[in-house]
Structures are given as C-alpha cells and as structure tokens.
C-alpha cells in the first residue's frame, strides 16, 4: 500500500471514528462506524490478510451493523438534545484519552521492529493471508478454541432470544414469538 493511500485511509478512518462519537443521531453514528469498519477491512487486505479483510466486511459491516441498525429502529431513538453543562467532563475525558492514545502510540513506536523506518519486504509466504493458511492454523493449533467458539455462538443466540423476549416467564404459547412491541409512552 503506497504511503499516500495509507494516509488517505488513515485520515478517513480517524474522521469516521470522530463521527461515531460526535453525531447526535445514532443512525449517523452507525453510518460513520460502517465507514471505519470498512476502512479497517481495507487495511487488513493491505497488510496481506486478504481472507480476514473479507471476513471483516461480511461479519462486521454486513451482519453486526445490520443488527445495530435494527435495534436503533426498534427502539425508535431520536436525535439527542444538545446538552450543556458537561463541558468539563468532556474535556477531561478527551485529555485523558489523548494521553492514553499518545502512550499507546509511543509504546508501539518503540516496540515495533524497525520503528519509523520503512519496512523492507515483509516475511510473508506466498499464500500468507489466504483462507487456506488461516484455516490451517484454526484447524490445527487452535482447534479447541475454534470448536469452543461454536458453543459460544450457540449460547449467544439462545441468550439473545431469551433476553429479548417480551415476557421471559411466559411459555411460548402465551407470547407472540418474534414480535417486539415498543412500550406505551
């Protein structure tokens, strides 16, 4: 990835992340988040992790973000009113987070091999980042973790259905499955 392209993507990603926290309409925040996640997928592909970049685009941008969008619509969230009087809190949070980011960046700068110097050819094999290479690690060294992941996803699905149900105590006959009514205002 040429330097100018990286700069472009990085600036756009930072602007998108700022959009996530600055927009007052949750849907606009979500759209900014979609931009950030897509750009991170681009960076994955630029780093050679092609399969992972596509996974990121499909799972995050395709699935998780649609879930967020449905919930925002379901809750019928409106644009928040502009609130005053919390300027000090916001300022303190921004200063603390800026310090944290500076520390992390300084640490990374020192720890990364080569530092700021341009890296030479990365030590990547011919099929680095392919689905085959990723699958070989997942099905080999991390087989147990990979299988536990399926249990985790199953538990998450069951838990999400149980939590989001209208009346957890009632049986399936008395509640209307798949129906989420907004509460009376």
């Amino acid at each position, binding site marked *: *990835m040429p*330097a100018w392209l*990286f700069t472009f993507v*990085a600036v756009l*990603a*930072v602007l998108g*992340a700022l959009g*996530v*926290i600055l927009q007052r309409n*949750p849907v606009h*925040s979500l759209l900014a*988040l979609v931009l950030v*996640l897509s750009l*991170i997928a681009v960076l*994955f592909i630029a*780093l050679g*992790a092609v399969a*992972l970049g596509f996974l*990121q685009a499909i799972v*995050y941008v395709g699935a998780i973000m649609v*879930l*967020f969008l449905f*919930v925002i619509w379901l*809750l019928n969230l409106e644009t928040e009113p502009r609130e005053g009087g919390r300027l000090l809190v916001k300022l303190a*949070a921004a200063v*603390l*987070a800026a310090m944290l*980011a*500076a520390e*992390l*960046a300084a640490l*990374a*700068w020192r*720890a*990364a*091999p*080569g*530092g700021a*110097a*341009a*890296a030479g*050819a*990365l*030590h990547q094999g011919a099929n*680095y980042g392919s689905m085959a*290479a*990723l699958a070989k*690690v*997942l099905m080999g060294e*991390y087989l147990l973790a990979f299988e536990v992941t399926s249990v*985790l*996803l199953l538990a*998450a*699905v069951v*838990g*999400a*259905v149980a*939590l*989001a149900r209208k009346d957890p105590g009632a049986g399936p006959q008395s509640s209307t499955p798949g129906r989420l009514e907004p509460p009376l*205002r």
Partner: protein
Amino acid sequence: MVAPSYYLALSALLFGIGVVGVLVRRNAIVIFMSIEVMLNAANLAFVALGAEAGSVEGQAFVFFVLTVAAAEAAVGLAILIAVFRNRETVNADELTLLRW
C-alpha cells in the same frame, strides 16, 4: 511500503477515540459502537504485528475476536431491548438502579 509502526499509531488513535466515546456519550447504543471501534483498533494492531512477523496467528486471534464481538453484540443489544422495555430509555445517566 508503510512501516507497521504507522498502523500501530493509527490503532492507538482509534482506541483513544473509542475511549472518549465511552466516557462522554450517554446513549447506551453509541457507547456500544465506541466499544466496537476499540475492538477494531486492537484487531488492527494484531494484524499489523502479525504481518510484520510473517505469522498467521495474529489473524487467528482476530478471527476469535470477531466471533466474540458478534456474540457480544447479539447479547448486548438484546439486553438493551430488555432494558428499554422496562425503563423506556437507554440513557446511561437514567439507568441508576445499581447505583447507591
């Protein structure tokens, strides 16, 4: 070729922005989105360091983070729906049941 340090610096910046979002915003869904930004910043650091070392394991970790994030989003949003049904708000300042 861009050095991995720049990817790590970008990752640190995105993580910091996510921290600000969690600290400043009061809408629980936007706090959730800020956490997703932080998760992705960590993923970017994983992939950048893995690419530098030429190992696929960084990508394997990101794969696991991806699945955990999917599970977390599903359960977390279900909790938000349950909270909204009971309290009719997802404003973190108004959810004070556990505050003494």
